[in-house]
């Protein structure tokens, strides 16, 4: 458990650093896929089995492929991802953010519960999504949002 967490955490941070440092955008996208798979592993260590599967299906199987296709469609001679002039202020902002969060997390006592999580989360999530007291309305709205996003993407990306 501990070894799995530390290995996955190191893999996530290294892959994220590779995404923002690699010059070649295609290689950065491949590093992003590694990051997504490691995040799915983190979900497994948190005993969220359904979310791990969803992460693999949607992020690794869907979003990564979309990103790779978009890179191949927009590749031109001046390839690469150069940095802009905001490097130092952006680094300061990110470092201050990280420092503040770490400070807050270390100095807070969370009301951690000792009870164990359920063995399988699929039925519980299904009940929460579709029960009377659950999240039926957000579920329906997210369906409408996906439909609108698909239509918008088709309209914007097609040849005139």
């Amino acid at each position, binding site marked *: *458990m501990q070894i799995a*967490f530390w290995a996955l*955490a190191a893999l996530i*941070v290294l892959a*994220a650093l590779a*995404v*923002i440092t690699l010059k070649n955008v295609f290689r*950065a*996208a491949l590093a*992003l896929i590694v*990051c997504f798979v490691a*995040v799915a592993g983190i979900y497994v260590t*948190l*005993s*969220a089995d*359904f*979310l791990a599967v969803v*992460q693999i299906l949607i992020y690794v199987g*869907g*979003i990564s492929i*979309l*990103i790779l296709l*978009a890179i191949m469609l*927009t590749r*031109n001679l*001046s390839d690469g991802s150069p*940095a*802009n002039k*905001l*490097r130092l*202020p*952006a680094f300061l*902002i*990110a470092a201050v*953010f*990280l420092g503040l*969060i*770490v400070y807050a*997390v*270390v100095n807070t006592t*969370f009301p*951690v*519960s000792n009870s164990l*999580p359920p063995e399988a*989360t699929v039925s519980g*999530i299904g009940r*929460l*999504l579709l029960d009377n007291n659950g999240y039926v309305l*957000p579920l329906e709205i*997210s369906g409408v*949002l*996906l439909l609108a*996003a*698909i239509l*918008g*993407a*088709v309209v*914007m*990306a097609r*040849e005139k």
Partner: protein
Amino acid sequence: MEIGLQHYLILSAALFAVGLFGALTRKHLITILMCLEMMLNAVNIALVAFSRFVTPALMTGQIFAVFVIVVAAAETAVGLAIIISVYRHRQAVHSDKIDSMKR
């Protein structure tokens, strides 16, 4: 040392900070989009960690993570369509080349 909630929260903050730095400094539009995805993943890690350690029986955090993933998928589809459309009109995918509203 037992792995607790704070480890996951610090991991989430680290991933978010890396994504924030990348989104602010990179010029390539698709790299900016990838950094946004990393930041959303960091938020999801924090949500699932809270759900696992604070309210293990309720799973509300996992529901939130599912909705975040839905919105992220929609955002990626629309964002990539916009990038492809911009590329078709201007032959450029770098944010410093797309500045007609600044001039």
